[in-house]
């Protein structure tokens, strides 16, 4: 009845592969991912270059591996930022006085009105496009999802009897937040993190495609796609690889999120 294992296992495996690729790129890539080699421009896939080379003679496999690093980096920083900022805000909104909760939620709605891409373009316009501005913009745009989730979860936990007991026993608020609330909403936050990660990967790709993300020559899947677009007539597969990489990574994080959701919220087990 539950398909928990499938989503969790497949999603986990894909994410694992992406992480492994990113880690691998630190110690080994088949070739230097940024070294231009005019002698091997647009080489076809083969023994020397498994997936061929791009217009600068750079090895596609190497770029994909380092691109995984960029992608994960953006995701980790963006989602991390959102989680670290959003979660306490959400818990605070739940535990604090009602007006604070109201204020937080309205601010949330307001931030939600600035979509990630719009924020990133604004940031890029002011500070110049870079991976950093992209990460921060995506992160800020993701804060509301975490705040909202944390607030909702915290309100539920706070209504449970053992927390009421703890409160009536006079335990300090911070202790309650750390000891009771946080552990109980950690699962939901993990689900949100996974889903946000998928969104961050997509956003980074779109931004790099528009030229508001990762700067050359740092390999990024979105940038690879943008560069490959010039060669659609000649070598369409150049666009295929980064496109596939993006799609697979997003799929992986989404599946992982679904799997985790089934885990942490059994009521939803059969939904997706």
């Amino acid at each position: 009845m539950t398909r928990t294992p499938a989503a969790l296992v497949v999603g986990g495996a894909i994410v694992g592969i992406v992480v492994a690729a990113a880690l691998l790129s630190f110690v080994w890539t088949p070739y230097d991912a940024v070294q231009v080699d005019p002698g091997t421009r647009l080489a076809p896939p083969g023994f020397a270059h498994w997936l061929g080379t791009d217009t600068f003679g750079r090895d596609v496999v190497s770029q994909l591996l380092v691109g995984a690093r960029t992608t994960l980096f953006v995701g980790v920083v963006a989602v991390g930022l959102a989680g670290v900022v959003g979660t306490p805000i959400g818990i605070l909104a739940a535990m604090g006085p009602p007006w604070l909760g109201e204020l937080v939620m309205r601010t949330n709605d307001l931030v939600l009105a600035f979509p990630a891409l719009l924020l990133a373009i604004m940031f890029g316009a002011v500070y110049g496009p870079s991976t950093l501005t992209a990460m921060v913009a995506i992160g800020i745009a993701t804060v509301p999802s975490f705040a909202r989730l944390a607030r909702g979860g915290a309100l539920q936990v706070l209504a449970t009897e053992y927390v009421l007991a703890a409160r009536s026993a006079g335990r300090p608020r911070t202790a309650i937040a750390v000891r009771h609330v946080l552990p109980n909403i950690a699962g939901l936050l993990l689900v949100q993190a996974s889903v946000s990660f998928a969104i961050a990967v997509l956003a980074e790709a779109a931004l790099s495609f528009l030229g508001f993300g990762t700067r050359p020559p740092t390999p990024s899947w979105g940038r690879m796609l943008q560069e490959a677009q010039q060669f659609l007539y000649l070598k369409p597969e150049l666009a295929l690889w980064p496109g596939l990489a993006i799609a697979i990574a997003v799929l992986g994080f989404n599946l992982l999120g679904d799997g985790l959701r089934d885990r942490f919220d059994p009521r939803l087990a059969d939904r997706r």
Partner: protein
Amino acid sequence: MTRSLLRPGVLLLAGVLLVAGCSAGSTASPGAAPGSPDAPLRIGLTAEPANLDFTRTDGAAIPEALLVNVYEGLVQLDQGTGEIEPALAESWTVSPDGLVYDFTLREGVTFSNGEAFTADDVKFSIERVRSDAWTVSLKSGMGVVSGVEVVSPTHARVTLSQPSNSWLHRMTTRIGAMFDPSGVDDLANTPVGTGPYTVSEFRRGDALVLARRDDYWGEKPAIARVDLQYFDDATAAVNALLTDGIDVIGTGAGPRGARAVRGDPRFQVIEGTTNGEVTLAMNNAAGPTSDPRVRRAIAMAIDHEAVLNTAWAGRGTLIDTMVPPTDPWYQPLPDVTPYDPAAARALLAEAGTPAPSLRMRIANLPYAVASAQVVQSQLREVGIDAQIEPLEFPARWLEDVFRNADYDLSIVSHVEPRDIRTFGDPSYYWRYDNPEVQRLLADSEAGTQEQQITDLQQVGRLIAEDAAADWLFLLPNLIVADTDVQGLPQNRIGESLDLTALSRG
């Protein structure tokens, strides 16, 4: 049971596809329409003008569209020979001391607002360049003019403060454009000139529509309407060409247009040269690059042929200094800074900076981004760490690099004709201050033609030896067009994309 539920959805989907399919069949006609003589000729370009006022807005996009086509000067460049030839001036004479120019104006010329063109307009236009109304940097070309005199309605006399061999040539650029005093109120949106075309519509983000004037004084162009369609992205322009969305891709699409139509009989490819020197600018006044040894090391670390082949598919011309082959003082200088990584490393060591870290703040244009990656990779080979930072062009690049010279390295294409003279201006963003070069440039203005050529050749050699900048390659004039479009320019040596000779055959 579920089937009955799905039916509306499936039908709706089918309906959408049907509409799409039907219209796909029925509107083959607009695609066929370009065959008719009145159909607009659609030219795809990649840099859209922010507005239509080149007196106040820098950049090549506005004169590309408007000069020669909408605005005319007293003189113009012959696209084939590069010679200066008559335009609104039927003829002219120069006094022996090179200070007084007498222009005899063509009669019966009218502006597109109906006003007649007279010597008063010449005086108005030239003096206007010198006023605050003009703000672009090129206005300095009019600095040598000391006065304009209206001798008669058809006779204008321009007096220079000192002899200038380059002034008449500059009169072929945008600063020589003739305006009507009553037509300068809204230059950004409503240009008024004497040219064969007027701007009939400017759909921002889409197209600039030029319509042929019936009351044009000269030979009327063959094409009644030209749509200059602007694409943010060269790939989109190529797609449009392939799907008959446009008829011509002007420069800007780069090699990918030529690549896409290779072997396709529907299209022709025209390849020539331009004035666009893709220049690796080096800050001569600040940072590690203020040391000439570092600059020379950079120039010698770069394999220019590899840059051209990799970044621009080998299309284009290698140049060794700020002079395109179409200028009279062109000279190859292969031995000044040959590709020699070992020597480059040695020079860096000698300068005491074996591994300098440099900011390469480039224009975010395709050729610059592509070249920068090759250059960066090659510099890395000799130990130079160059960080690429693409800046939005034009605004951000102009602000940070061009105006404030806040850069170590930069890449942009310099398309203004005869822009070697910029090395005589210490405030120009190269921040190159060489009295010898400045003296030679001043001399070249006064002497004979031969003297001018030798002086400028010497300047070319000096700046190359100093590595005042490095010249990566000269952008090609790569035009891809439907086979039946005739009269496309082989070379682009002026500022304008000359539409007057175009026809369909």
